[in-house]
């Protein structure tokens, strides 16, 4: 059946499609395109993959790049190993039927997630500061004062500390998504398990966990995209130089410094675009891996 042209469809779609295309898609393509150009003898010229060769091959660039990528990977791993298990555990505790005050706990634990990085970054900086002394005093009260160190200022511990601060901030997201998944498990299934004598942790591991794996997959890919796109927390607490000695430099701060310049180095839009393109490919790779490698293999149960 041939339909006649219906102008209202165009009217409904036009504003969103136009803004989305002009402000998001075209700049994304523009950035990818810009990474293939550079200034040669004062004139803009096509250099192919030359910028990428510089980024990976020129020791001045590649050392910073691999450092940022390595740090970013560690940042992501901490989220996967700390944030998501804690989120799942909290969701499991909250979703037990008849749990009292469940909604009060949920509301409170989600509070850090709504705060801006500026608040979170400075608040923790103050709390961990040796000058104010909240952290050392609290450790002293349980007899562990010797454990205290200016964690944010030391190369060995700064990145891990920041990752844990970020975990503190975002643990609410896995908690909520897993909680929703746990609530959607039908009661008969749980009752059947209880009749068979499977309760408590065994019940969680054998019955519930396999059923919420798709939600765990979603949480993982959200964590991945969020972490490889992170910038704010590091910038707020450690500045654009991601100190001490670039120990907390991740791809987002590296991109910012390259694009805008810092101290005496001038900003470089072409190399900035190159780093953004690499980040784009990393995120795209992760998303594709999830969509085609993980999601299709997870068994979904229909209730």
């Amino acid at each position, binding site marked *: 059946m041939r339909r006649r042209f*219906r102008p*209202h*469809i165009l*009217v*409904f*779609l036009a*504003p*969103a*499609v136009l*803004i*989305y295309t002009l*402000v*998001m898609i*075209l*700049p*994304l393509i*523009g*950035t990818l395109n*810009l990474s293939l150009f550079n200034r040669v003898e004062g004139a803009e010229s096509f250099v192919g993959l030359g910028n990428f060769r510089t980024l990976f091959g020129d020791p001045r660039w590649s050392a910073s790049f691999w450092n940022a990528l390595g740090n970013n990977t560690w940042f992501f791993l901490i989220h996967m190993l700390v944030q998501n298990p*804690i989120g799942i555990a*909290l969701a499991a505790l909250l979703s037990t039927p008849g749990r*009292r005050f469940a*909604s009060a*706990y949920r*509301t*409170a*634990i*989600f*509070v*850090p997630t*709504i*705060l*801006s*990085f500026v*608040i979170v970054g400075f*608040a*923790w900086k*103050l*709390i961990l500061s040796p000058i104010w*002394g*909240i952290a050392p*005093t609290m450790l002293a009260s349980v007899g562990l004062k010797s454990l205290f160190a200016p964690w944010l200022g030391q190369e060995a511990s700064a990145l891990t500390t920041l990752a844990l601060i970020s975990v503190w901030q975002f*643990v609410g997201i896995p908690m*909520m*998504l897993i*909680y929703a998944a746990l*609530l959607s498990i039908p009661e008969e299934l749980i009752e059947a398990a209880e009749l068979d004598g499977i309760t408590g942790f065994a019940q969680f591991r054998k019955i519930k966990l396999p059923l919420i794996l798709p939600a765990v997959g979603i949480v993982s*890919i959200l964590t991945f*995209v969020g972490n490889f*796109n992170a*910038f*704010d927390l590091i*910038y*707020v607490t450690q500045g654009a130089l991601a100190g001490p000695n670039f120990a907390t430099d991740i791809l987002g701060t590296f991109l910012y410094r390259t*694009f805008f310049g810092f101290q005496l180095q001038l900003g470089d*839009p072409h190399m900035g*675009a190159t780093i*953004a*393109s690499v980040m784009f490919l990393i995120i795209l790779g992760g*998303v594709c891996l999830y969509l085609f490698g993980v999601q299709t293999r997870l068994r979904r149960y229909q209730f």
Partner: protein
Amino acid sequence: MARRGRLRAFGAHAALLTYTAIALFPVFVIVINAFKSRKAIFGAPLAPPTPETFDLAGFRAVLTQGDFVLYFQNSLIVTLVSLALVLLFGAMSAFALSEYRFRGNTLLGLYLALGIMIPIRLGTVAILELMVATHLVDTRTALILVYTAQGLPLSIFILAEFMRQISDDLKNAGRIDGLSEYAIFFRLVLPLTRPAMATVAVFTMIPIWNDLWFPLILAPSEATKTVTLGAQVFIGQFVTNWNAVLAALSLAILPVLILYLIFSRQLIRGITSGAVK
């Protein structure tokens, strides 16, 4: 058996209470110390303010030194206008995608969904060039355009899912009564999507209000600073004035916290109803 159950419940509450304390402790410490004198901030950081230690010096410094009223206004304008555009344009597109069958429908849906996973920040280099070319640098319009583009993909996705569940009978009854497609959308469908709209609104608002990257890059001028950027710059300049820093942080926390407590039910219901999947 009953005894074991009670023991288990006790353990669960202990774990949840501990984590709640960890989640709230930093916020609590910042807010109570903002109302204390400098001496008390360092002398007894964990004690709540008493009549002797109560001091608003920090707030006075913030209100006289930083132009927080203006920053607040900027944040409010940028957030509310972007939010309105995301909701309106998002709902319109969602309606077109869920209501009509036309060539390229699925493809267009996928195209619009791309932005859910790919962060708009990666296009920053070219976005800045675009804003420079159109003379929009250091305007709130630049931020509004970027945040509208950023918010549209998820809002279209959620709203389209929701609109697919609205009964066809209602819309067809409207058509028989001679309503135009626009009237069907604005008078019949839009009022029914209110619950989904509320969810989308919260998800759209929080990242816009909290964003530091785009205000820093596209609108860092004094006249267009948002609260988030303003607080960041202010605290950077006043690092040694602890009263001012704590007061600035509290002023940034409290409005968000109050809004959250009002809307938390909506937000949590939105997430747990499976609107985000």
